[in-house]
């Protein structure tokens, strides 16, 4: 970072050798973090846009939770179509997840004939810009069933009359995604400051969304750090992590220097995958037996260390305070170096 251009950071603000940057980052985030309110206010608006925020979100990010509570994907579109509402709508339709259960008004099972009659909601089918015939054919293809449609009724004929199988099929059919991408959630069209349309989806299926025609692959973004990691790699995950931390703190009007957040993101991702802060992540990776034992699960670490004959290199802060040595940070990071030959000279002089 410092090697390239100035990047807005003046040279005199570079940290010195031995500066405890981790401690500074922790205090700089932690202190204003105490002012964060647990219950956050939401905008009255569309259900899908309500995302976890405040302290719960920070915990989620820092603990590296595999599944965020409210994944959201931001989909920008290719330059040719991003100003065209109709075309954007078409893309959104390819993404917007429509389940059978949301368009079926009533399902009537006939166990003696082995048929399932689905009465579709006209409104819902029209909203998805489909016809009952399309629904029937898609269902037939996707589930390998014999499906016929008439008006707003779809009739599924099964080969079996087994009560259990009929019911199972009904349940499966209702769960089937008939349009859009499975797990993409509700797709909503928004407009940004420049007048460009973009799509917000309440899911994290960026692996599938990226293949949808018209999507700007370079701008695809989700708040799910692990989804970003799977699709784009660690660097993207690191940036996402830092971005999300910054966004959450900004929402709460908490002003933290972004370099502290970048350090957290770096510490969590430098190993090549994402590690949380805690006993299974960063703290559990510490080199020192004592530092780990001092944090959590004391007995476990001591027993393991004894079993494997572990050696504590005594390079961290915690273990050095524990035994009563000077910590290797700040003024303690300086060591005196002397040539062996000189040392011998001093010793012989002393003895004389």
């Amino acid at each position, binding site marked *: 970072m410092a090697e390239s251009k100035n990047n807005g950071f003046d040279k005199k603000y570079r940290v010195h050798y*031995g*500066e*405890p940057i981790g*401690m*500074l980052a*922790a*205090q700089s985030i932690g202190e204003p973090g105490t002012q964060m309110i647990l219950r956050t206010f939401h905008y009255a608006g569309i259900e899908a846009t309500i995302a976890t925020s405040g302290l719960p979100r920070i915990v989620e990010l820092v603990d590296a939770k595999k599944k965020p509570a409210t994944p959201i994907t931001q989909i920008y579109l290719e330059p040719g179509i991003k100003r065209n509402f109709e075309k954007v709508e078409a893309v959104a339709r390819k993404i917007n997840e429509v389940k059978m259960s949301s368009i079926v008004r009533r399902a009537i099972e006939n166990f003696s004939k082995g048929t399932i009659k689905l009465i579709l909601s006209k409104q819902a089918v029209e909203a998805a810009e489909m016809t009952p015939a399309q629904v029937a054919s898609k269902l037939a293809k996707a589930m390998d069933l014999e499906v016929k449609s008439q008006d707003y009724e779809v009739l599924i004929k099964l080969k079996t009359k087994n009560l259990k199988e009929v019911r199972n099929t009904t349940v499966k059919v209702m769960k089937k995604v008939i349009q859009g991408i499975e797990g993409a959630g509700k797709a909503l069209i928004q407009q940004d400051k420049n007048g460009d349309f973009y799509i917000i989806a309440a899911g994290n299926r960026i692996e599938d969304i990226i293949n949808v025609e018209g999507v700007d692959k370079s701008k695809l973004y989700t708040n799910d750090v692990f989804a970003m990691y799977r699709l784009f790699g660690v660097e993207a995950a690191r940036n996402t992590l830092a971005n999300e931390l910054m966004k959450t703190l900004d929402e709460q009007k908490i002003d933290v220097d972004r370099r502290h957040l970048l350090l957290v993101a770096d510490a969590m991702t430098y190993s090549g995958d994402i590690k949380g802060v805690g006993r299974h992540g960063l703290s559990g990776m510490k080199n020192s037996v004592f530092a780990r034992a001092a944090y959590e699960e004391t007995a476990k670490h*001591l*027993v393991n260390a*004894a079993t494997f004959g572990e*050696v504590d290199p005594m390079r961290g*802060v915690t273990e050095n*305070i*524990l*035994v*009563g*040595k*000077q*910590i*290797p*940070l*700040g*003024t*303690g*990071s300086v060591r005196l170096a002397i040539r062996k030959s000189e040392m011998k000279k001093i010793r012989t002089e002393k003895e004389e």
Partner: protein
Amino acid sequence: MESKSNCYLYLNGKAIGYVEDPVKFVNEVRAARRKGQISGEVNIAYVERIKEIRINTDRGRLRKPYIIVENGKSKLTHEMLEKLKKKEINFGYLLRSGVLEYLDAEEEENAFVAFSEDQINERTTHIEFDLSALFGLTLNTLPFPEHNALARHAMSANFIKQAEGLYATNFNTRFDSRAYLLFYPQMPMVTTAAYEAVNLKSHASGQNFVVAVSTYYGYNMADALVVNKAAIDRGVGRSVFYKSYVDEERRYPGGQRDRFRMPSPVAEGYMGEHTYAKLSEDGIVEPEMAVEEGDAIIGKVAPPRFLEENIGAGGLEEKTRDDSVMLKAGENGVIDSVVFTETTGATRIVKVRVRSLRIPEKGDKFASRHGQKGVLALIVNQEDMPFTSDGIIPDLLLNPHSIPTRLTFGHLLEMIAGKAGALSGKQVDGTSFGESGKNRLEVYEKEIEAHGFDRHGDDTLYDGITGRPFKAKIFTGVVYYNRLYHMVSNKIQVRSRGKVQILTHQPTEGKARQGALRFGEMERDALIGHGASLLLKERMLDQSDKTTVLICKECGNMGYYDYIKRTPVCLLDGTTNLEEVEISYAFKVLLDEIKSMHIMPRIRLSE
């Protein structure tokens, strides 16, 4: 269920049947109760929404009396009120004669209660006794509770618990382990009906302070209080603190027992002559003796801890151990009284009460009855306090910022009411909802104006230092303040060097053990943040539990120094190649504990 009239009937939560015509049934039960045919403790409620009748007769229900209204007329007539005044009839009579009745929470839902007689309409079933009955007893002992935020009442109730006052009139013969007594308790200028009714005024817990809502050179920022020195000298907030010490002549198996007496200089643990200087011949201090920390106040000797063979001692004197009671660190006072008595086990006990004067000083806590607490921060000479042209000098200066965010308007009202009362020489009634707020204020304002003061309570104050009038008029009044028993003199503690714990060799914690202040995790983090590694080492090691141990260079185990051979020796391999290493004693304990679990920790030394 589908039937229109059928209605389930519950008795104390258990379904016992159903009723055809619920309204008629409920009315019949109530009429019977009012006639005295069934107990007045029965309550019945009809929940129309879910068609249920609930009869409750069990214990633990909160109930409240109401005046019954029938056919648009209150059953409590003026004749009855007159008789009540003459004490010809009483409350119980009114209850029995169906004029009053108790409702519980469920039956209250069926009632239509009017606030006063002129509000009665065709739906009215009851009248509220008095609007102040909307609050409970505790709240009604406070003045103007309807003008304060509820959270402040909760605080206020807590503070009054902690207030010093006349807690018992037989305090002189009591030996409470701790007791506080206010020198000149006063009845509050602003009282309430409930305050009078429970006779709190004969156990008053505060004094009426002349308060000015003003700043004083920043000395009353953030709930700090500025108090007039002359007021303190006249006895404002002055109190006495009693502390009792008890000791017993215990009996031990083997016929031995403790004895109250002056310990002999050969007794085990004898503290030196000066410690016992204040004890009289019987081994107990005399009343009115001034005592200080460390002084023995009850001299007692106990038999030695371990049975020893007394052969060879010649039977000269029985061996004893000193077990006297000393005055604790930081305490002092005068012996108030000494009492000898006996337990049921026929052992002698002695109780010694120490009295010490507590004149208000910086750091003492005061609170008004509106949840407004403060800590005395400056005692100002009378001549430097602001004063009015009449020469009135406030006892206390309250920072104006303490009012608006806390919504304690009752405090301001009490100031005005208290001022009116003080000027006219009469106690003022501050019962909740007494008169509608505005009228009440007007009464006080007129009273104040009649005595030649500004009707809003704002007086022109003059700066005591420069003598010039302040540009703004300053709100002054009389408020009842409580002195709370949190005093610096009971809490102050200092230590430079001192005791350490046996196990870890680290300094002790807490005032009772003369402990040090903990240099905690967050303080540690702060030093790390500054990179002050040597200062951190000093705190965590040099000033704490530093020890020097000998570590074997060959095996990494701890060794010892052989003073005869004048060489360090390793416990494990017997070699003499050891090095002195400074470590924390806590770490040594850790290593020992690990070893006790059959794990061998080794310390590798490097240059």
